[in-house]
């Protein structure tokens, strides 16, 4: 992926987030923004995930696009998405646990692990179903590792 296309995609992601309907008026913009970011991640992992599960036929081009989007999101600077006081003990409308702010280095490491796995996916997503499937599993592992530690169940 070229730097130009990365920038373009980040801009695209940013506009999509801004265009998301407000989930609840009183939820801070930062919380809505990060939730929107995760929704975009879910949407894109769904493209490759449905291929991995055999629900839809493998499509190299679509797989590559979805993987590139995940890489693009992993490059978004996260500092504005996680202001202090936006945990689930302080406000409604979020499942982000206070432990996030007590373990920031670990949270960042988990986010970086997602980025590395997304990069790994982008390297193979267009090369065939089997390598893509393995790489999707690795990305999924990084989502789960962070939700395990830092996201409250429903």
């Amino acid at each position: 992926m070229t730097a130009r296309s990365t920038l373009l995609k980040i801009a695209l992601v940013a506009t999509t987030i801004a265009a998301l309907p407000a989930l609840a008026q009183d939820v801070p913009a930062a919380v809505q923004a990060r939730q929107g970011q995760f929704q975009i991640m879910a949407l894109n992992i769904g493209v490759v995930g449905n291929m991995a599960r055999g629900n839809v036929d493998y499509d190299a081009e679509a797989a590559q696009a979805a993987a590139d989007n995940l890489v693009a999101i992993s490059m978004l600077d996260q500092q504005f998405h996680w202001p202090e006081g936006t945990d689930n003990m302080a406000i409604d409308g979020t499942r982000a646990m206070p432990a996030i702010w007590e373990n920031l280095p670990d949270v960042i490491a988990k986010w970086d692990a997602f980025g590395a796995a997304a990069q790994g996916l982008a390297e193979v997503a267009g090369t065939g179903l089997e390598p893509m499937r393995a790489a999707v599993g690795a990305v999924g592992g990084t989502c789960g590792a962070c939700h395990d530690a830092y996201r409250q169940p429903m």
Partner: protein
Amino acid sequence: MRSSLIYLLVFCLAGFAGAVLLTRPGVVSDSALEGLVGDPVAGEQVFWAAGCASCHAAEGATGEDRLVLAGGQRFASDFGVFVAPNISTHPEAGIGNWDFADFVTALQEGTSPDGRHYYPAFPYTAYRLAERQDLADLWAFWQGLPASDAPSAAHEVGFPFSIRRAVGFWNFLYMDDAFAVTGELDAAEARGRYLVEALAHCAECHTPRDALGGLDRSAWMAGAPNPSGSGTIPALTPDRLTWSEGEIAAYLNDGFTPDFDSAGGHMVSVIRNMAMLPEADRMAIAAYLKALPPAGE
């Protein structure tokens, strides 16, 4: 007056004797296990299905680290904090000097080799329903696991819950010898019931508890408050969990919901276990969930 005092005394003594009998820790004898030969390959499947690593390996462990059963994970409950002990093959720090009867007695009676009750934070109430052959296989697999010399930590449980004897009374109330779901089940549903109720102890999280911490079997898998913090653990009954059987089986394998959200909380570790099982077992679990009685409102 005098006779009523004697009556009271006799009544108390009888009650005490009854209580001692009722709360006596159960033991499985060597002879009850005669002839069982364990297969370590089959035992690995039992190990993952039963989720021993989710509690006895390090929190968040992945890959080979899940085979190091050094203990140390903490489990918050209404009664205090329980800490998983070292159950590795180490002879002093772990359970390396146990025999098979000690192992089965712990897993199915909730009794330690020195005759004390374990706390039900250790899900022996589920393992009680496991086939002895499966436990023999598990025991054979466990022999090949690494030893850790990490010392076990004490539980942080206050009076009166610190009295292990009282667990005997709890066992009398809650230790069931029958599956929760009864009635006609086909082969897949029955396999799913065995996996869910006897091994994977899904109900320990997905079923609400009463005031004494026992599972409310009338609300089986109907969802429950999250014991370790805020939020709720979702219901798995077919009226609440409307995913297809294929979607449920896929979630238990790759951790993604039908919308490709990714599972969180303690479910992540459960999925790491379930992903080690054959696809047919995950489908059997899904079939069983669809056969659950609805939670209703």
